């Protein structure tokens, strides 16, 4: 079970969080003309990197804030956690 430092609340057990997937994805702007391929990439395609990965977590049983975590997918080492605007 991971130990995750919520940037708002501090260290908490993984039990309090929900995983939110790749944290580097940017949603296309509203009303933007976009090809089928680009849209499909946004909706479906995700990398499954070995090593460092920035991902989203949601503190659902706490402050209910979404934030970003830089984690190694092989060792689960967490390098930093930060607010989405950082």
């Amino acid at each position, binding site marked *: *079970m*991971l*130990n995750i430092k919520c940037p708002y609340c501090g260290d908490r*057990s993984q039990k309090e969080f*929900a995983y*939110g997937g790749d944290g580097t994805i940017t*949603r*296309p702007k*509203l*009303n933007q003309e*976009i090809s*089928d391929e680009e*849209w499909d990439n*946004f*909706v*479906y395609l995700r990398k499954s990197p070995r090593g460092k990965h920035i991902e*989203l977590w*949601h503190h*659902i049983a706490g402050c*209910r*804030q*979404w934030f970003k975590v830089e984690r190694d997918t092989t*060792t*689960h080492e*967490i390098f930093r956690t930060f607010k*989405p*605007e950082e």
Partner: protein
Amino acid sequence: MSQNFRLNTGGLINRDKPIEFKFNGKKYIGYEGDTLASALLANGIHLIGRSFKYHRPRGFFGAGVDEPNAKMQVEINGCSEPNINATEIELVNGLSASSQNCWPSVNFDIGAINNFLNRFFPAGFYYKTFMWPKSFWYRVYEPFIRKAAGLGIASLEKDKERYEHKYEYCDLLVTGSGPAGLASAYAAAKNGAKVILAEDKPRYGGTLLTDDVTIDNLSGKDWSEKIISELKEMPNVIVKNRSQVFGYYDHNMMVMFERTGDHLEKKPKYTPRQRLWYIRAKEVLLSTGSIERPIVFGNNDTPGVFLSAAAKEYMKVYGVLIGKKPIIFTNNDSGYETAIEFKKNGVNPIVLDTREDQKSELINEAKDLDIKIKFSYAVIVAHGYKKVKSATIGKLDKDKIDFENTEQIDCDSICVSGFWTPTVHLASQSGNKLKFNDSIDAFVPDKSKQNEHSLGAANGTFTLQDTLKNSFNTGSEVSKSITKKDEKIQIPNTNERKYSTHDKFWCSPLPKGKNYKRFVDFQNDVAVSDIEVALREGYRSIEHVKRYTTLGMATDQGRTSNLNGLQLVANVEKKIVPQVGHTTFRPPFTPVTIGTIVGREIGKEYMPTRKTPMHHWHEKNNAVWVDAGAWKRPRYYKRGNENLFEASKREAKNVRDHVGVCDVTTLGKIDIKGPDAAEFLNRVYTNAWLKLPVGKARYGVMLREDGIVMDDGTTTRISENHYHMTTTTAQAANVLSHLEYYLQIVWPELNVNVVSTTEQWAGAAIAGPKSRDLLAKLFPKIDVSNEALPFMGYVEGDLFGVKARIFRISFSGELAYEINVESDFGLFMWEKIIEIGKEFNVQPYGTEALSTLRIEMGHVAGPELDGRTIPYDVSLEGLVSKKKDFIGKRSLAKEAFNKVDRQKIVGLVPLDRKSSIPEGSHLVENKNAKLPNPKLGHVSSSCWSVENNNPFSLAILKDGKNMIGKKLFAVSPLKNTSIEVEVMSSHYVDHEGKRVRS
């Protein structure tokens, strides 16, 4: 026979407190402080079970977690549990144990015929023999094998015991209270660190209890008692015995189980039997010690063969002799400590040392005590079936691959010592890749992957002086970096004997023409020959050899067999052990009861139960419950002998004819506030939201980005920048997370806040032609006319002094309202509705009637919004704005979502107007077509239409738009039904929607 093997003095047991217990139905006496194993040995009982595969007689081999054989069925306080290690369970009055894996008895076991047929039971025997015919596996082979090879029997009774979970945080967790554990915990505690010291045995001290050493002129035992009592006094230290740390998980999450109740004859009322601890430690110090390695020889599994350190522990801790005529078979100095202990207790051992004329302090001491020593000697084979009676021993030749001469000598026990294996299981679980240490022929921890350090014997350090020095230093260094305190500690003086080097001898060769079974893994009955078979058959990877032979598997996890197994593979493959590598150590290190893992999360505590404020009223009025997520909802209210079908029909009919009231508190409610709230809703929902006036509600559908319908519900504009959103009961949590995601991550520029208010509001839906009359009586001061409060209108009112929100919305398709009050007044509201509604014939209705009402109206719910449907599929395309963008809109342009024969919701009625159509039925054109019969769609929801008095269903049907009027079959292989149905519009009742607007 009464404790003939108990010494008159010595040991840490309490001879003033005899304890009566049973083994295989017979009564015995032991003492307080005994384990089941030591008490049986005191009574001279060695034959305790039969081996897993060959049903060979087995006896005790170790004295603690190292024990591979002594798994027993144990009954304490009426609770029967299999596979309990007799060397670990403490003796209590009334304990009753029995042997496993034998029939009819441990003395006469029919399965032992396997032993004489053993050439037919080689490695991989099950895989090879029981392959054919395939159908025989489940019916014949598997039940037979399970019976023949089963371990204990799990009780079929409900476990009456109580198990608990506990969470703890600390700076340092120290696992094991031997010299390394005590020293490091003490140093860290002195620096003010929060320390947890865990010991799996009842007594603290580890090897200090059995080794002949002094620390600061105190005996090992006295020193450990002194340290423990000091630690117990310190407020920053938790000291726990009977507590095994069995798992090392991510980010230093350690899991430990504590045996809180099993050793107590009378457990206090609220004391759990066992407790599971989740410990998050900043640093973990692994002082798990080491386990003695056996030396492999012929029939080395005969009862009476022990690890030499176990024999010593039985004498020193329990005052028990494991034999009166022992052979000590050793390749290092440890065997001499056991020999000396025997001698001190009046027993004359004979030592066989595989080394040539070795000299050391211990050997000199043994010689001074007149102990008979034979150098360059080994045990070739043990004789005796149910107990060792004699042994053939031999003088090793120079290369130690054959014997120069052999002789048979009488003995009643053989104590083996093949040097020490560090207990690296937890270090390995932490991700630490182990490295092979040539000087001790064993793996030791390498670089740490997490915050852990191995200390003392667990790290391959076998002298007390070095162990204490390293452990005090590490404890102090590690804690210093956390607490910033540096309390200097004087490292104590020690007095211990110096060991000479050990011999790498690990397995006695077979004399020419002899074919003795030589066991490597006792628990899984794996002999040298089995591993050789696996290698001959081409298995190379150690992980494959493990699985093919079962070496090092199961509860034992290779504690005594691992290295000898690797050594054997290395020898055959002409490699060295580090080239062979090692198998993965897995948690749990020792077996853990399922009860402990489950803890209190059982029965109604399995998950929280959510109850609405009106719950007790429903209960009093014969509600039959249905689970909706964690919520309890009334499915129907039973009157007299009514069944579900009759009751739901009555309730639904009453809504259509008069007025019904339904508890809708469970719907998700989200409060939305902020100047950009309208813009946000406009992006979240598929329809337009910018122009919704204050005091109006609107129905909305939200999609996922992939275009699939996520949820539906109404949202009401309470004031300029304040909205009240409702979601379905099932999706409430997901919708909130979804909204938060878009507000915090995607569009942080929107000034909007959302919060769940599901628990804050109690809701009651009143539905039916009389609902307006009822509402008028509930709110006499409000104009509730169709003009003043039209469909989708909203007004606030005063319900006999309670502030209420009134929404004119309808799920049933009838004229209907939903009233919300603060949760504390929910019951008050409900009782007022029932009381005042009497004159209008109001009746409560449950979820079953609710479903009936919405199905005949063609309103969609969970079964239609099943994560596979887009708005078009469920006839919600009219709510999809063509002008504005919203979440998931781009996906709706996808080719597959615009196919002309796309699936669509339809209604179904059986041609006979009688047979109800099972939900989940498949729709096919021809019920007799060849399989696989092309599937056109499926039945999503079914009800008995109270309006038309016949069954009616909703279905998702391919090209549904053009199928109206067609006849199909709804087949359910599960229910074995095949019903001819007619396809029609999904709106079976009031398809113009007049009633909701009336």
